[in-house]
Every structure is written in structure tokens, then in C-alpha cells.
């Protein structure tokens, strides 16, 4: 096969072997563009943290990836399959926790789990019981009587019980206490998949201290656009905050600049791989950033 045909194939059918792929994805609500030219790709086994301020488009992006919202232009693919036409084969390998999951309040927890679980050929009641026990879920309680935290844990078990290879969580831990959040993270690492290899996971969350424990990749979304995408480690090693009295000329690697209203200094976020530090005055200070600091530096 020559290179030209493989490129044509990749545009038409996606890059083989990728778990998740967005290619110039745009979503519009009427005249409003809510996702603007989103492109990124994840290899199987990656754990992506999707972060951004409220209204940045995180939920919309997750829904577009899952094919629940049609793109205006561009394409999303899950396990090589166009999100607009997911095959049953791909669907059984997906697990999704929506921000406000729809649950049947009149059922008992175990009934709700079995009702949904039995739709999947791979489902086993025993595995579901193990998951419920690990998340401390009261199996005999009516769903309508559950606390918000318990409803969230039920939604997590619903998404994981059929051993999907791709897990998508929209704010999965917002109502969980710190213990519940740790239980959830540990469960993620032990998650058994149908394919026996590590699941690919996407988690949108504001709880950055949880994300930094688990993610391999981060995507910062800002007003419907990708502000920053990369592996957790490369972002930690190459992103720096710079405080400088003078704003350098616009150049590659200068991701953001903001003037401090009080002392008039400039606060920059730079990617040291492409930013030319010689453009900075000698009085400029540089510091490395943890995830929370990076989030604030990019969005504050």
C-alpha cells in the first residue's frame, strides 16, 4: 500500500486502532457554534480528563462523540466507527454516565441493574454484585429513595457492569464524598473489559485533584474550542507560567497572556517546546504548574 491511498483511507475510515477520534468536529445549535473545529485522538487504554469552565462545551463534546448530537461538519469515531452510525458491535462496548442519568425510581437497585444489564450478552449478575459491593450500593433499596450520591454510584455501575472497552463519564463524581470518589477511581483501574485490555476512558470533571491521579491525557476546552491537548506528563514538563513586566511579541508557544490589574505585570502561559525564552526580559520569572494551577492560569 502506498502512502497516498492510506491517507485517503484514513480520512474516509479513520486511523486504524484508535479508540476515539474527533476530526474537525463542529456542532451548532441554530446559528450558535458550540463546538468549533475539535480534533484529537486517543489510543486504546488512554484516560482522558476533559476540563473547562461551565459552558465550555464538555457535555456537548461527549454527546457528539457518542452520536447523540449530529455534527454540523467534521466527524467523530469510536473504535473506528462513525458516531452517527454506531454498529451494535460497537454499542455493546460502550459505557456512558450522563450528567443527570435517567433512572427508574419505582424499581429496586438490583432490578434496575438487571433490566439494563440483560440487554448485553456478556452480562453476569455476579459481576454486577461485585461492582455494587465495591461502591457500597444498597441493592435492595428503591431507586427513588437513593441519595444523590447513591444515584450517581448506581449510574456508574450501570455504565460499567457489561464490561465496556470505552467508558465515558460526564461529571461522575460531583455528588460523591472523598471516600466514594476514591472507591470510584480504584474501581476504574480494576475495570474488567470484554477485550481483556485496559479500557479507554473519558472523564469530564471539575475535580482536578481526582483527575490528576488517573489521566494519561488532558483536553482543555474553552468556549467550544480545544485550548490545549496533550499527555499529562508532557503538559507538566513543558507548560510554564511566566510573570514578566513586558509582553513579548505574539509567537508560537505563547498560549495565553493576561495583564494583572494591580501591578501591571503580564502573566503568560507558554509551551517551552516552541516558545523562545530569549524573547523574555531577564527579570521575567518562570514556574512549572500542577494541573489546578495550569487550569487557573489558562482560564483565570
Amino acid at each position, binding site marked *: 500500500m502506498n502512502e497516498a491511498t492510506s491517507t485517503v483511507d484514513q480520512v474516509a475510515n479513520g486511523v486504524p486502532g484508535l479508540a476515539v477520534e474527533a476530526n474537525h468536529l463542529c456542532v451548532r445549535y441554530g446559528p450558535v457554534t458550540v463546538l468549533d473545529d475539535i480534533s484529537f485522538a486517543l489510543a486504546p487504554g488512554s484516560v482522558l480528563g476533559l476540563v473547562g469552565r461551565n459552558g465550555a462545551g464538555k457535555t456537548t463534546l461527549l454527546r457528539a462523540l457518542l452520536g447523540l448530537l449530529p455534527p454540523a461538519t467534521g466527524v467523530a469515531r469510536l473504535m473506528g466507527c462513525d458516531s452517527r452510525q454506531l454498529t451494535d458491535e460497537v454499542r455493546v462496548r460502550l459505557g456512558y454516565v450522563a450528567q443527570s442519568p435517567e433512572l427508574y425510581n419505582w424499581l429496586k437497585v438490583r432490578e434496575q441493574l438487571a433490566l439494563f444489564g440483560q440487554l448485553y450478552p456478556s452480562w453476569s449478575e455476579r459481576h454486577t454484585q461485585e461492582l455494587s459491593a465495591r461502591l457500597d450500593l444498597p441493592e435492595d433499596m428503591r431507586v427513588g429513595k437513593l441519595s444523590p450520591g447513591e444515584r450517581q454510584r448506581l449510574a456508574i455501575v450501570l455504565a460499567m457492569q457489561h464490561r465496556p472497552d470505552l467508558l465515558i463519564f460526564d461529571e461522575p463524581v460531583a455528588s460523591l464524598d472523598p471516600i466514594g470518589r476514591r472507591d470510584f477511581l480504584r474501581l476504574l483501574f480494576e475495570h474488567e473489559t470484554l477485550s481483556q485490555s485496559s479500557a479507554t476512558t473519558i472523564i469530564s470533571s471539575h475535580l482536578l485533584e481526582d483527575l490528576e*491521579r488517573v489521566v494519561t491525557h488532558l483536553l482543555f476546552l474553552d468556549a467550544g474550542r480545544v485550548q490545549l491537548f496533550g499527555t499529562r*506528563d508532557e503538559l507538566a514538563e513543558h507548560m510554564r507560567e511566566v510573570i514578566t513586566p513586558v509582553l513579548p511579541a505574539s509567537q508560537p508557544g505563547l498560549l495565553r497572556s493576561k495583564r494583572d490589574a494591580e501591578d501591571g505585570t503580564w502573566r503568560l502561559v507558554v509551551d517551552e517546546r516552541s516558545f523562545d525564552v530569549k524573547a523574555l526580559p531577564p527579570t521575567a520569572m518562570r514556574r512549572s504548574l500542577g494541573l489546578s*494551577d495550569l487550569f487557573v492560569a489558562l482560564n483565570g
Partner: protein
Amino acid sequence: MFRLELQPSSATPLYRQIVEQVTRAVAAGALHDGDDLPSVRAVAQDYVINPMTVSKAYSLLETQGLLERRRGMGMRVRVPATSGGTDRLALLQPALDHAARVSRQLGISADDALAAFQRTLASSAPGGDGQETPHE
């Protein structure tokens, strides 16, 4: 027992924290040749971090020759006896050269100088025998 002190919120990536702490523990003698390190899974569950991060750190340490992967049984510390020993002695040599020069200049006998060095070694050992002291 060797314990990692991991800070997920630090700007230093977790895998680097693991590599640095194991390397330092080996250099400091807190980890010895043949010691077992907990498995990838155990570290991941203990510290609630991604197993891939632990795996990446262990692989790097393996490449550096400090760890040896044991089939299904976690990792074992390998201290390259010769190179590790000479490296550290080589680091000590300049201080010894200096001390030897000063003792000669002051006319101190070799026996007195050795005895003084032994007393110095004894008084500077914190726990007496290099055992790790428990701390919060």
C-alpha cells in the same frame, strides 16, 4: 519498609516522582539489592493512581538497571554492586584527599587520623546503624 511519598498535585509528573524516590532510596541504602518493591497493581491501589503511571516508572527504572521484573511477582531491586560502590567511593575521594593533606600539614600520625575519622563516622550516624526511623 520503603514507602513512596507521592504528590499528585505537584508539577513533577507522578512517574518522575516514583523514579526519583526509588533512585534516591537505592543511593541512600534504604533499598538494598534483592529487596522487593510492591507490584504495579498494589502501588496503584494504595496511592489511587493510574497503574500505567507506575508501570512507566518501573520500566524506566528497569532500563536504568535498578529494578528487575519478576514474573507475576512485582519488582526486585538490583544494586549493581561494583558500579554503585565505586561511584560512591569516588564521590568521597576528594574529601579524603583534603583530610589527608591537612593531617600531614598538621603532623598528625596516620593512626591518630584514622581514629579521629572513626569517631567522626560514629558520631554522625543518625540512627546508629542506618536503619530507617519512623516519622509522620
